[in-house]
C-alpha cells in the first residue's frame, strides 16, 4: 500500500486538453473516485497513473517513488478494466494466477494463493471454468481476484461496474466496498456514475474539461458544491441554479419581476448584483400561493418516483424543482408559493465559484 501524488500533471491530445495541470494527493489506503462526464479527463488521468499513457509534463509519485516515466510493470499496480479483460484461453484459476506466473512464483504457491483469493471473492467453485462460461457478475469478481492477488500498492478501476445490469451493479458495488474494507488497498476508481462514486469513495474528485472542479468527501461534494459545475453535476435531480439579483444593502434577492425574497442571514462576501442562487430540490417546499416569505410559482409537471415526488415549477421564466417525500402526488392548484430553506442556499459568483 502506498500514497499517491499527482503534481501539475498534464496531457494534451493535439488541441484537446485532456488533463490540464492537475494536482491530487491520495493518502495510503484511501479509496478515491474520479468522477465527471465523458471526456473530462478522468480516464486519461487513470491511464497516466497506470503508465499506459505518458504525461506531457508533471509528476506522479507512488509512495515516495517518482514513477512518471516508468513502464506499467515497474509501478506495482493492479488494474480492473471495464471489459474485465479476462483471457479467454485461460481458466479462471490461470487468469487469477497470471500476475504471479509472470513473476516466476512457483506453481504450488500460485495454486495456494489462488485458492486463498478465490475463497475471499467467493469464486472457488468456478476455478476450472473458462471466462466465457461465467456470468457478468462472476467475470467481474474474477477480474477483481486477479487485481488483488499480487498485493499491488495501488489498484486502479476503469468503470468496472458499467457492463453490469442495474441490479447486479448494486450487488457488485456493495461487494466492492466490503472487499475494499477488507483489503484496504489504495484505490483510484473512474466512473461517470455519481451514485457509484458516492457509495464507494472516501474522496471524490470531480473533473471537467481536464481540470479538477472539486475534491472532497461525498458529503462535502453533495452538501457544499464549490462551483456551479459540481452543483449542477451532482445530485439527481441536480441543484436548482437560479439567476438572481442581490441588493446587499437591503438583503433582497430578486428572481424576476415581483419575485423578491428577503434574506434572513448574513450574505457571503461579494454577493451583490448578478449572482446565481443554488438550492437543492429537497430544500424547496411548496406553500399556498401568496404566503409571506414565498415566491410565486406556476406548476409545470409532477413526477411520481416511488418513495418521493418531483415537482417542477416555473418561477418567473426559470424552472425550479422541489422534492417531496410522499407516497402519492399531492393535489396542488396551478398557482402556489415556494419557500426556500435559506440555511441551505448558496451564492455563486459570475466566475461560477461559490461565494463564501
Amino acid at each position: 500500500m502506498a500514497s499517491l501524488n499527482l503534481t501539475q500533471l498534464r496531457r494534451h491530445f493535439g488541441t484537446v486538453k485532456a488533463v490540464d495541470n492537475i494536482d491530487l494527493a491520495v493518502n495510503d489506503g484511501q479509496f478515491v473516485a474520479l468522477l465527471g462526464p465523458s471526456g473530462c479527463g478522468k480516464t486519461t488521468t487513470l491511464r497516466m497513473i497506470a503508465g499506459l499513457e505518458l504525461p506531457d509534463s508533471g509528476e506522479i509519485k507512488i509512495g515516495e517513488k517518482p514513477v512518471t516515466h516508468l513502464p506499467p510493470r515497474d509501478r506495482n499496480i493492479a488494474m480492473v478494466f471495464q471489459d474485465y479483460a479476462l483471457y479467454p484461453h485461460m481458466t479462471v484459476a490461470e487468469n487469477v494466477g497470471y500476475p504471479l506466473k509472470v513473476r516466476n512464483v512457483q506453481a504450488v504457491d500460485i495454486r495456494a494463493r489462488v485458492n486463498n483469493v478465490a475463497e475471499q471473492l467467493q469464486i472457488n467453485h468456478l476455478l476450472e471454468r473458462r471466462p466465457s462460461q461465467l456470468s457478468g457478475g462472476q467475470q467481474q469478481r474474477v477480474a477483481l481476484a486477479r487485481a488483488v492477488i499480487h498485493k499491488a500498492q495501488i489498484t486502479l478501476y476503469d468503470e468496472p461496474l458499467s457492463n453490469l445490469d442495474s441490479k447486479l451493479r448494486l450487488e457488485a458495488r456493495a461487494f466492492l466496498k466490503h472487499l475494499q474494507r477488507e483489503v484496504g488497498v489504495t484505490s483510484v476508481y473512474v466512473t461517470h456514475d455519481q451514485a457509484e462514486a458516492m457509495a464507494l469513495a472516501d474522496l471524490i474528485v470531480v473533473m471537467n474539461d481536464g481540470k479538477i472542479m472539486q475534491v472532497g468527501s461525498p458529503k462535502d461534494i453533495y452538501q457544499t458544491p464549490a462551483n456551479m459545475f459540481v452543483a449542477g453535476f451532482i445530485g439527481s435531480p441536480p441543484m436548482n441554479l437560479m439567476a438572481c439579483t442581490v441588493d446587499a444593502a437591503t438583503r433582497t434577492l430578486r428572481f424576476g419581476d415581483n419575485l423578491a425574497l428577503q434574506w434572513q442571514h448574513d450574505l457571503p462576501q461579494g454577493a451583490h448584483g448578478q449572482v446565481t442562487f443554488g438550492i437543492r430540490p429537497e430544500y424547496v417546499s411548496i406553500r399556498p400561493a401568496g404566503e409571506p416569505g414565498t415566491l410565486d410559482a406556476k406548476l409545470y409537471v409532477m413526477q411520481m418516483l416511488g418513495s418521493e415526488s418531483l415537482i417542477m415549477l416555473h418561477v418567473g421564466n426559470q424552472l425550479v424543482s422541489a422534492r417531496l417525500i410522499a407516497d402519492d402526488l399531492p393535489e396542488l392548484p396551478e398557482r402556489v408559493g415556494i419557500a426556500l430553506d435559506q440555511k441551505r442556499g448558496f451564492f455563486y459568483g459570475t466566475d461560477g465559484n461559490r461565494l463564501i
Partner: protein
Amino acid sequence: MQQRTVLSRPISLAFISPAFILIALFLIYPFFSIFSMSFTNQALTGAAAKNPQYVGLDNYAELLDFDTWMTRGEFGSSILITAQFVLGSALIGQAGLGMSIALLFYRRNDLLRHLVYTLAIIAWITPDVVIGFAWFAFLDPNTGTLNNILGLFGLPAQDWLLKFPMLSIIAFNTWRGTAFSMLLFTSALSAISPSYLETSQVIGASRWQQFRDILLPMLHTTIATDLILITLWTFNTFTPYLLTGGGPGYQTELVSIYTYRIGLQNFEFGRGSAVAVAVMLINLVLASVYLIVSRARKTK
C-alpha cells in the same frame, strides 16, 4: 423445414446453369480426361501420338520409382524442392514477416506504417509478368539494382539466379506474398481488445510473455488458417519460372514447373497427367486440412 424460394425451380436452375456449365467444361471434364489420360502413353509427337496405348499404372510407377525419383529433375526431387520453397518463402518468409510487420505496427498509425503497408500491398497485387521482369532486372548480374546497391557498400556483385537460385526465389516469393499474411494478422490483432494487452502490461508481463501468453493463443486459429492457405498457394505457384525457368540444373524446379515441363514442354501428356493427378491429391489433403480447421474455428 419449410422451403422459401424467391424463384421457381426452373428459373433458379436457369440462373445456375451458366456457372455450372463453365465449371463442368473447364474443371470437371479436364479432371476426368486427365485422370483417364494418366493411364495412357499419349503424347504430342511420335508413335504414341497417333495410337496412344493403355499402359495401366506405368506412369505412376515411373513417378514413384524410388531408385531414381530423388534425382534432380525427377518427381521426388521437385517435391522436396517445393517443400523447401514452401517452408522458406511461405511459412517462414511470408507468415513470419507478415506477423512481424503486423506486430511492429500494432496500434500505430504513422507515416511509416502507411508506407510499409502500401508497398507490401503493391507487391502483392501487381501482375505476375510485371513482377517477374522487375525482379529479373533487380537481380541482373551486370546492371541489376541489387548489385548496384551492394557496390555502394563495396560488396562484390553476384549472379544471384545462377549462384543462389533457391534463395532468390524464396526471397522473391516472400516479398511477393507477405501482404496477405500481414493483412490477415493485422485484422486479427485489431479485433483483440486493447485492454487484454494493457492488463498484461500492468500485471507486469514482459514483451515476450505478452506475445507468448496473450497474443499467440488468441491468434492461433488465424495462424493455422494463414499457414494452410499460403502453403496451398505457394505449393501451386508458377511465377518463379519467370526468374529461373526451374534451373539452373533443375535446382528450382518446383512441382508446378515440373508438371509444366513434362506435360507441355516434353509433350508427354500421359506422364504429365499422372503428375497432375498426384499434385491434385496433395492439394486435396491440404484443402481438407484447411476445411477441417476452419470448421473447428466456426463451431468454437
